[in-house]
């Protein structure tokens, strides 16, 4: 699906085109159109995308609560306090725990499923199963969180019901420190894995069949074909999925807030929740902004590092 680029890109009226008998007024409609359409769009973009990013960084330097008429400038005090705040450090740790567990599991489960779906001969079966795996992703995450909260209910939930049939005792999934985070990870994977399955599937479908045929002729078995044809040609898609999943999981919020709200004993308090609570429950907006700046830096650093690492190993174009 590569976009066809024309050999010579036409430039707009600002560049000297052959000055034919073009009346000057004909230039105005084009620039008017550009200015007229772009101004409101760029205006909205600046107001709701760029300005908030800058404002966040500035806000982090103040002690800002919504009721204070003149918030005092406190420099880097928020940041210093953050890194001495055990709750913040715990939030960081929990976020890392979530990301470092959920991202690899997500990818390691999504890829085989996508491979399996890809190898199905019957189109209706493949599309039907693909839809099935994607269903949890199509629903609002709040719905998923609420359903799983009930699933995990110690007395009435499906999980413990299944366990009791297997003779195992009841588990307090969301209420016990050891099981809370894994429970949330399990739910997140269920809700989320559809995305990566679909994108992997698309990446697999673009690999030309000739490569597999050539490999088979050379005597490669299924595993070898996977290692030497599929994996390298999937590297671009895999890189994209890795970065996107990581960015998404760094910001995890909804399911944590709804299922455990950080508990028990802050074992599931993640950065997203920390920022939200500080900003909108304790109205410590400067402090929360500082935490969000940390999240921003974290996201950018991890993204750039990954892209750099992957660039060195990704060289397959076709």
């Amino acid at each position, binding site marked *: 699906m590569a976009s066809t680029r*024309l050999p010579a890109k036409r430039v707009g009226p600002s560049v000297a085109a052959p000055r034919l008998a073009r009346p000057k007024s004909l230039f105005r409609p084009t620039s008017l159109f550009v200015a007229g359409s772009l101004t409101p769009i760029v205006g*909205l973009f600046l107001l709701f995308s760029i300005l*908030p990013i800058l404002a966040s960084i500035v806000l982090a330097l103040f002690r800002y609560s919504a009721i204070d008429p003149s918030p005092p400038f406190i420099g880097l005090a928020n940041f210093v306090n953050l890194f001495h705040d055990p709750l913040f450090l715990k939030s960081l740790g929990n976020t890392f725990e979530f990301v470092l567990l959920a991202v690899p599991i997500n990818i390691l489960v999504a890829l085989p499923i996508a491979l399996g779906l890809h190898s199905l001969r019957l189109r209706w079966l493949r599309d039907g199963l693909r839809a099935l795996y994607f269903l949890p992703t199509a629903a609002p995450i709040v719905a*998923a969180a609420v359903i799983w909260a*009930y699933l995990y209910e110690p007395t009435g939930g499906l999980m413990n019901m299944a366990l009791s049939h297997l003779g195992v005792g009841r588990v307090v999934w969301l209420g016990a420190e050891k099981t809370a985070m894994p429970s949330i990870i399990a739910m997140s994977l269920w809700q989320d894995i559809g995305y990566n399955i679909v994108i992997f599937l698309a990446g697999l479908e673009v690999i030309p069949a000739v490569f597999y045929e050539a490999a088979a002729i050379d005597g490669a078995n299924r595993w070898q074909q996977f290692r030497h044809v599929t994996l390298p040609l999937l590297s671009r898609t895999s890189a994209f999925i890795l970065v996107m999943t990581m960015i998404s999981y760094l910001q995890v919020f909804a399911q944590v807030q*709804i299922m455990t709200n950080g508990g028990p004993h802050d074992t599931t308090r993640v950065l997203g929740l920390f920022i939200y609570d500080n900003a909108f429950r304790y109205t410590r907006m400067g402090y929360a902004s500082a935490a969000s700046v940390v999240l921003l830096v974290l996201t950018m650093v991890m993204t750039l590092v990954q892209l750099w690492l992957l660039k060195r190993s990704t060289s397959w174009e076709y």
Partner: protein
Amino acid sequence: MAKSGSRVWSWASAGVLLVGGLLMLMPFIWMILSSFKTPAEIIHTPPTFWPSDPSLIAYKTVLTRAPFFTWFANSLLVAVVTTFLTLLTSGLAGYIFAKFEFRGKRFLFVLILLTLMVPFQVVMIPTYLIVAKMGLINTLWALIIPSAVSAFGIYLCKQFIEGIPTDLLEAARIDGASETRIFFSIVAPLIRPALGALGIFQFMWSWNNYLWPLIAVNEQAKMTVPLALSYFNTSQHGARYDLVMAATALIVIPVIIVFLIFQRQFIKGLTLTGMKG
């Protein structure tokens, strides 16, 4: 070329995938079954799987006790308007970035792309303050306007429009067509697949959005569906899961139906992100 060994493999993997699919479906099945249980059965211990006396009483209670239709209407209005605005701004901006030159164009486009990496938590506090200053907190506009411009949409449309031969547009100009005419009558129809995918994507994103409505709205009458469900869930204090599951079912089933209808466009939209990336 299918040897008997690979045939067994195909059947085995299809079987595993089916079982996996069933596991994916299980929470939804549980939701539906629970929604048909009577209030007595839902608190009964030991818990049952199938409803022993299926009834619609939970649905009736939810629909009469909660302003469901308001929530649905809110979500629908916000999603439709946001999607329309996003398609318009993405198409226009994508067209301009693809086919016109002006000073600072490259810088601006890179800036737009960079914002894709920024987590929402980073912008949510200032966005709240800006919207509050505009006096729009607790209105549906608060949910629409900040989302009217989509960096992803602009990127997608630009990619697609670059594939349109510029000569086509030049010919139209020479024929005397106005720029707006060119955009709406020539460019827009040519990028219909992208617009379709983007539209579905944006609609579902807007429908499912939770964090921003959570911040911007706290009046029950102005809530959108995900926010309302969360409040409803909390209000039941973990006791009446029949009601909560009924409410969830009412919310999940329409979305799933919409998804199944527009499956192709939605998945195409998703893969467009992965392929062009």
